[in-house]
């Protein structure tokens, strides 16, 4: 292997803490079809360390109660735990204030919330700008917002036959007109693995008076993220992709914006006063959290923040970049492979996605599973980009803190066997 990559992985003061990471994740220690599990489907969802599972159990065994409206001991403890998690997430992304953290079910709900609330302020003639590499969850809600408001939806193109050129930043000059009211883009593509220059995109959105909305689903758990350094207006992410439980996610919004934003869902907990004729809303974050919140999973998300910060987020970024680069390098050697996204040496983190002319992604995933290797095959909720690239599906290997170089070797060996079986190698 490339010695530079190797030293990036194992050298430095962080070396020790990485050695024991796998022991933290109970699920990894199982066999699948008689082979040790090699879980390379982390872009779909990540596994949970013991500390996060324990946080859930502890909450339900000690502090469970409804929040906000209670004055008894359990309710106060539950409220403290819930609001503590909010403050913890605020710190995790360097938000100015905990009230800028709205708990949602995940990235998809976060984008829906902001898209619907912002749609109410848009008119015909306004433009919503997306990119051609958006996940359906950061695309369809904007299509709906455009439809509801009469605004137009436009796209920053992706460059290269394998999208290896990333976003066409040169096209931005023409696209980012003062008509653009929202610019929504992903931080890391879940299909290409490329890292977009989000600070620059936020800056340029601001320059024309457009709101910036970052889909951080693939980046939040894979490195540092500082919403104030980025100058982001809204940031959406999911807990389940960052070692947290399913069912919890976040919409970060700048306080000044949230105070003016209309609520999305309504009901108990988000109102100041209600009579039969109408209601008055609380300020953020409560305004956007109608009903009993997902208290336990929010608390466990706080534990996931602790876990990732203890590992070190710059180190996680280096680890996930090194594994992706190594996988890209080793996969390049396979006959007939077509690799998407940045070429070797490009800004890639956490995943590699690829296709063969003769062997379909589904067959690969089914065969790899027999070797214990968990991959994802399909359109990765990225149908328009797939179509643009002349594909219907790819196979994706995605990495996280517990993956190792050896697992990449298992992947490559498995792929070689599959290609041989289908007569392609």
């Amino acid at each position, binding site marked *: 292997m490339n010695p530079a990559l190797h030293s990036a992985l194992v050298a430095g003061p962080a070396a020790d803490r990485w050695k024991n990471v796998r022991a933290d994740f109970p699920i990894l220690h199982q066999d699948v079809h008689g082979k040790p599990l090699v879980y390379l489907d982390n872009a779909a969802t990540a596994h949970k360390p013991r500390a996060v599972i324990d946080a859930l159990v502890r909450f339900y065994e000690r502090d469970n109660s409804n929040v*906000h*409206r*209670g*004055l008894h001991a359990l309710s*106060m403890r539950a*409220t403290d735990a819930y609001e503590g998690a909010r403050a913890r997430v605020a710190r995790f992304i360097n938000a100015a204030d905990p009230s800028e953290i709205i708990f949602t079910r995940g990235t998809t709900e976060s984008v829906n919330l902001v898209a619907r609330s912002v749609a109410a302020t848009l008119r015909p003639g306004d433009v919503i700008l997306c990119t051609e590499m958006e996940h359906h969850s950061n695309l369809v809600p904007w299509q709906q917002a455009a439809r509801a408001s009469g605004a137009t939806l436009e796209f920053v193109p992706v460059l290269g036959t394998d999208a290896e050129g990333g976003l066409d930043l040169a096209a931005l000059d023409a696209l980012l007109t003062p008509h653009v009211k929202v610019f929504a883009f992903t931080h890391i593509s879940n299909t290409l693995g490329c890292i977009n220059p989000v600070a620059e995109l936020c800056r340029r959105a601001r320059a024309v008076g457009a709101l910036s909305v970052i889909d951080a689903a693939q980046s939040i758990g894979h490195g540092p993220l500082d919403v104030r350094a980025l100058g982001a207006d809204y940031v959406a992410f999911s807990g389940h992709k960052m070692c947290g439980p399913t069912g919890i996610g976040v919409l970060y919004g700048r306080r000044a914006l949230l105070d003016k934003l209309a609520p999305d869902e309504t009901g108990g907990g988000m*109102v*100041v*006063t209600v009579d039969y004729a109408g209601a008055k809303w*609380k*300020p953020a974050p*409560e305004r956007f959290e109608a009903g009993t919140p997902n208290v336990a999973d929010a608390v466990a998300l706080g534990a996931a923040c602790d876990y990732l910060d203890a590992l070190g987020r710059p180190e996680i970024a280096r680890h996930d970049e090194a594994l992706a680069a190594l996988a890209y390098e080793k996969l390049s050697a396979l006959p007939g492979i077509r690799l998407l996204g940045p070429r070797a040496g490009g800004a890639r983190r956490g995943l590699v996605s690829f296709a063969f002319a003769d062997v379909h992604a589904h067959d690969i995933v089914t065969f790899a599973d027999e070797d214990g290797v968990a991959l994802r095959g399909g359109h990765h909720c990225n149908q328009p980009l797939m179509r643009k690239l002349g594909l219907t599906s790819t196979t994706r290997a995605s990495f996280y803190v517990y993956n190792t170089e050896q697992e990449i070797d298992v992947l490559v060996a498995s792929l070689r066997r599959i290609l041989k079986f289908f007569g392609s190698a």
Partner: protein
Amino acid sequence: MSADLSELYQQVILDHNKRPRNRGKLPTANRVAHGDNPTCGDQCNVYLRLDGDRIAEISFDGSGCAISQASASLMTTQVKGRTGPEVESLYRQFHHIVTSGETPDEISDLAAFAGVHTFPARIKCATLGWHATLNALKGDAADATTEKHTD
């Protein structure tokens, strides 16, 4: 009864709760403000007659727990005759008392609310009347709700 609880429900507070001072509408008021604690439904109206920049007369009504009613009652006795800035400074001291439990010497009866600090969920009760008064002084037409403040 635990020490915390008897610290919370001091005699001064029980007394103001039973026999609130300055309770009722003020026919001569030239400023009015309404306060809401949306988590529990407590409400407090404050009526002021401002004479120049001083509170010449004050009264309150509404409904709420012993802490909120006693605090509003005691508040009226403390702010009468004071200017806006003086009331604000007094509120800052009161807020410090109910959140920290510390009781500086100069502040007489307000120190009775020091016990609130061990019941964080009750801080909003203790500050409701104050918020309404501060809003009335500002001539702020908007309702005061304890949710908008970071107590």
